[in-house]
């Protein structure tokens, strides 16, 4: 072929739909002779063709290629599933909240008259092995009483309807069954459950009596239906700071992880693109093909992620992460967020690919990294965390009280600080690794490999780094603001561990209860008292709006019981009485006026503002000594009139309630369960409380649980991603490994080199993570205006978790490594 006219089969034939690729446009005079030909602007079809070609590379390529694409897709899918889960959390919380409110039995203030649709209810909550079980006793007063959500009918007396989780628990726990002995006639429907792990029951009763107007008599509330108005509690800026940080810390590693996943197989891809450049792909085509490849993996990952999510959702019912469980149907990702994920993940994949291609120039002869030979510069990497700091610095000390905070600013600052950690990582790895040398073969192989391409390794651990740094920072913040949310109850669990309180009881009943309790398995010691109240003797005669009924507690108990409450020495015998004045800092200056020996008090002290009934006057015996109070085992200070049962006719007391303090046998873990079982027989108005030295605000507990749940998931995810990356790296070097084995390199040496190769960047990453985490933690603490305090325990814990994940991953990658090292790996292109 010597003529200039191309043969008909030549791709440059005029029939081609993309004349812009005509290379002879300039040679045969058809082009404007002045300037350069316009850069070929690809039309839609060319775009499509190149993208499809890229997809073809991703999809084709035999087992090897498929594996790589599958790894990418699985990586992206894990991230997407995580994001979808995060997107479903608000709706899930909402749905749970709605159902929680719908079955709520509280906030029924007004008095209701009995009617055909009313019923009586009382809560019968209990705890079993640390799990809270909610029970509601129901007693319909008419036929039209509406059953609670999830129930078809009101349970009959002695029967109950239970949640599926409770049913299972009851079946496996005879001890609990003893406590909740009602006949199970059905299960609560979904509408009546917050989540599948919900432990709940509705039992029918015929022992309920509605409270009367004075609430002196009765044991149950009357209601017409279930449900309350939702009242979301205001949480305050510190809480919001925590919330924002938790979200950022949990989701950022996911983003880093997705970015890592789409860069899998980058070296191979570069080589492949170089081969395409040789046969005439221009730079734009190359980019489009790479984009198509990334897009394919990302789209596949997106689909797979959706599948993962749907599958995981089915299993969600069986999984309780740190006390939170959810119904599959509750996990409905927010539509807008889902669309955002579906669009942004593929776009991010393409963007990441383009950015990674920007640093490399793919030429027909191979791949040149522009940065090759030029050391990474540290200054712009430092700029990122500095910018984050600049965003956060104005808020130092500002996050407190009711101040409204700019959550976006906090999120951006935190993200920048954490991203800064990942940006610094490649520089750190390169700088440190560049100085390593010598050592045994395995070490040498590892360090040389890292020196040649520290990028991939740095990328591999960046997810761990971000996660650990974030977790350390959060832990520090949490422990700094703990006092805000955790209250010291002052209780002394050494004296008693359980308190059983019963409303509306009598001295005889209490004595009986006490006997039963002390006979219960696992109870070491017990003491109890009866509590009631009195008021001024002239209460019944008072009129006018300014009348007040001073509160005068009356406590009746035997000497053992009273000694727990006041500094009563040996002078106590049946018939004794004592006076204890309210603490001075109480500001209570009225009660002491009446707490005097020889004074009379009115035992008919109602709960309402109106005096009802006839006065029951009682005289504090003359000569009653005043003694000092003593902190009781629950941490509170009791005061008032202390009397032994012989000193007062307890039937005259107003609505007396008993409190029994119990010390348990520490060697019998189930002791508390036996006590609960015993107490369950005391009547509907008996409550069992664990005495603990601290108490935590509920929403804070929720957040902390959420953090732990999320951190657990993130760590698992990062472990999976590490494994994927590791396998991919091994796969990439299959030939080299085979050659080394052929040389006679010992496999153990290679295994060690793989371990070193991950360990070195991981150690560096963890060092950076600790530094970054402590830094971010310090910033966050500064924002809430607390003094900086180091939480070395959490630093160590988080580092250990990160290192553990890496170690586990390395171990998991050893079997494939062994297989890859077979000499048949030599025969690969």
């Amino acid at each position, binding site marked *: *072929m*010597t003529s*200039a006219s*191309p*043969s008909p*089969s*030549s*791709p*440059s034939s005029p029939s*081609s*739909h*993309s004349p812009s*690729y*005509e*290379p002879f446009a*300039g*040679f045969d005079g058809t082009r404007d002779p002045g300037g*350069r*030909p316009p*850069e*070929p602007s690809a039309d839609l079809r*060319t775009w499509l*063709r190149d993208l499809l*070609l890229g997809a*073809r*590379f991703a999809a*084709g*390529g*035999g087992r*090897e*290629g498929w594996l790589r694409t599958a790894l990418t897709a699985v990586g992206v899918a894990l991230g997407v599933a995580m994001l979808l889960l995060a997107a479903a959390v608000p709706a899930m919380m909402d749905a749970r909240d709605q159902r929680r409110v719908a079955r709520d039995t509280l906030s029924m203030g007004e008095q209701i008259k009995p009617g055909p649709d009313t019923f009586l209810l009382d809560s019968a909550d209990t705890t079993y092995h640390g799990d809270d079980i909610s029970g509601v006793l129901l007693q319909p007063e008419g036929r039209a009483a509406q059953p609670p959500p999830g129930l078809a009918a009101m349970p009959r007396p002695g029967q109950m309807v239970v949640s599926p989780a409770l049913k299972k628990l009851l079946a496996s726990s005879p001890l609990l069954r003893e406590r909740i002995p009602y006949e199970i006639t059905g299960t609560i429907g979904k509408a009546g459950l917050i989540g599948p792990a919900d432990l709940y029951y509705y039992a029918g009763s015929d022992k309920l009596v509605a409270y009367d107007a004075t609430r002196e008599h009765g044991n149950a509330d009357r209601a017409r239906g279930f449900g309350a108005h939702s009242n979301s509690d205001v949480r305050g800026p510190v809480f919001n700071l925590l919330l924002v940080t938790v979200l950022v810390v949990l989701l950022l590693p996911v983003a880093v992880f997705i970015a890592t996943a789409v860069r899998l197989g980058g070296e191979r891809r570069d080589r*492949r693109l170089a*081969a*395409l*450049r*040789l*046969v*005439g*792909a*221009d*730079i*734009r*085509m190359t980019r489009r093909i790479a984009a198509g490849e990334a897009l394919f993996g990302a789209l596949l990952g997106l689909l797979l992620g959706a599948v993962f999510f749907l599958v995981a959702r089915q299993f969600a019912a069986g999984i309780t992460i740190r006390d939170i469980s959810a119904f599959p149907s509750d996990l409905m990702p927010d539509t807008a967020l889902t669309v955002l994920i579906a669009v942004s993940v593929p776009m991010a994949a393409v963007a990441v690919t383009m950015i990674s291609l920007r640093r490399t120039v793919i*030429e*027909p*002869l191979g791949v040149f990294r522009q940065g090759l030979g030029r050391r990474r510069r540290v200054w712009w990497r430092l700029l990122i965390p500095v910018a984050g700091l600049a965003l956060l610095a104005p808020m130092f000390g500002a996050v407190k009280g009711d101040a409204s905070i700019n959550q976006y600013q906090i999120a951006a600052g935190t993200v920048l600080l954490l991203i800064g950690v990942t940006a610094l990582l490649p520089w750190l790895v390169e700088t440190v690794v560049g100085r390593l040398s010598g050592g045994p073969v395995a070490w040498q192989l590892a360090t040389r490999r890292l020196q040649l391409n520290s990028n991939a390794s740095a990328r591999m651990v960046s997810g761990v780094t971000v996660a650990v740094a974030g977790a350390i920072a959060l832990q520090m913040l949490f422990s700094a603001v703990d006092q805000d949310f955790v209250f010291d109850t002052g209780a002394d669990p050494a004296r008693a561990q359980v308190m059983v309180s019963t409303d509306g009881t009598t001295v005889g009943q209490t004595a009986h209860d006490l006997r039963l309790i002390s006979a219960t398995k696992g109870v070491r010691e017990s003491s109890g008292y009866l509590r009631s109240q009195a008021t001024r003797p002239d209460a019944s005669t008072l009129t006018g709006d300014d009348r007040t009924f001073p509160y005068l507690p009356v406590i009746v108990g035997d000497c053992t019981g009273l000694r727990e409450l006041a500094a009563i020495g040996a002078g106590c015998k049946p018939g004794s009485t004592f006076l204890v004045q309210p603490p001075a800092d109480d500001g209570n200056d009225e009660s002491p006026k009446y707490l005097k020996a020889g004074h009379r008090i009115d035992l008919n002290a109602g709960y309402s503002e109106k005096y009802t009934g006839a006065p029951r006057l009682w005289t504090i015996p003359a000569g009653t000594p005043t003694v000092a109070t003593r902190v009781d085992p629950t941490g509170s200070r009791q005061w008032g009139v202390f009397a032994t049962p012989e000193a007062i006719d307890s039937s005259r007391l107003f609505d007396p309630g008993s409190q029994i303090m119990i010390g348990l046998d520490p060697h019998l873990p189930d002791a508390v369960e036996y006590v609960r079982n015993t107490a369950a027989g005391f009547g509907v108005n008996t409550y069992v409380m664990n005495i603990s030295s601290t108490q935590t605000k509920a929403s804070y507990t929720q957040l902390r649980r959420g953090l732990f749940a999320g951190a657990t998931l993130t760590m698992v995810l990062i472990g999976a991603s590490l494994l994927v990356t590791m396998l991919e790296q091994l796969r990439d070097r299959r030939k080299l490994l085979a050659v080394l084995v052929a040389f006679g390199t010992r496999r153990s040496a290679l295994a060690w080199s793989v371990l070193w190769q991950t360990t070195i960047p991981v150690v560096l990453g963890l060092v950076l993570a600790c530094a970054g985490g402590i830094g971010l933690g310090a910033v966050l603490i500064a924002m809430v205006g607390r003094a900086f305090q180091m939480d070395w325990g959490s630093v160590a814990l988080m580092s250990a978790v990160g290192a553990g994940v890496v170690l586990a991953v390395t171990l998991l990658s050893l079997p494939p490594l062994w297989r890859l090292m077979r000499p048949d790996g030599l*025969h*690969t*292109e």
Partner: protein
Amino acid sequence: MTAAPEPLLVATDLHKVYGHTPALDGAELTVRAGEVVAVMGPSGSGKSTLLHCLAGIVTPDSGEVRYRGRQLSAMSDGERSALRRTDFGFVFQFGQLVPELTCLENVAMPMRLGGRKRKEAEAQAATWLERLEVADIADQRPGEVSGGQGQRVAVARALVGEPRVVFADEPTGALDSLNGERVMRLLTEAAHDTGAAVVLVTHEPRVAAYSDREIVVRDGKSRDMERVS
């Protein structure tokens, strides 16, 4: 083959320095349509660099390469890419095939990049594989075929677009003499049939014997062996 009066590819006074290593130092080369030019010379003398300059893959520091009267270095990357797609073909020692694609797809690739339909491109690729006696491995991947088979696939790919110039850098470097000569015979015959010129870098005199003309490169300087005697 007699040289056409009009030279296809003319390189004059090429200089190229890598770092401090002079790779080309005044090399020259003229390729006329349809001729096979062997480029020989010691290792490191700059043969590959010269070839890459001729193909527009590497831009020389000074000197110029004209393809059909047009200076390569004045073209944009897109134009040079298009040129590689339509007018040039390449056969290297190894590694130029895309490992992910089957042999057939590899051969069809230049045409596909040029915008041809897949069916069409693969049909034509198949005839080329047949011509190079490797039709039986069409559906295998480069990793699964022998070196000689792979080279023939590479030759098919280089020639499938009926280029005007085929650049071959030690195409038989990894083959035994029998296979090497077979590849050379197929390459030169096919090139002859399509009228393609071949620039052939080789160390082996017997491979060079398939050429019409010889250039020797020493220390970055070229010597046209036709002019020595």
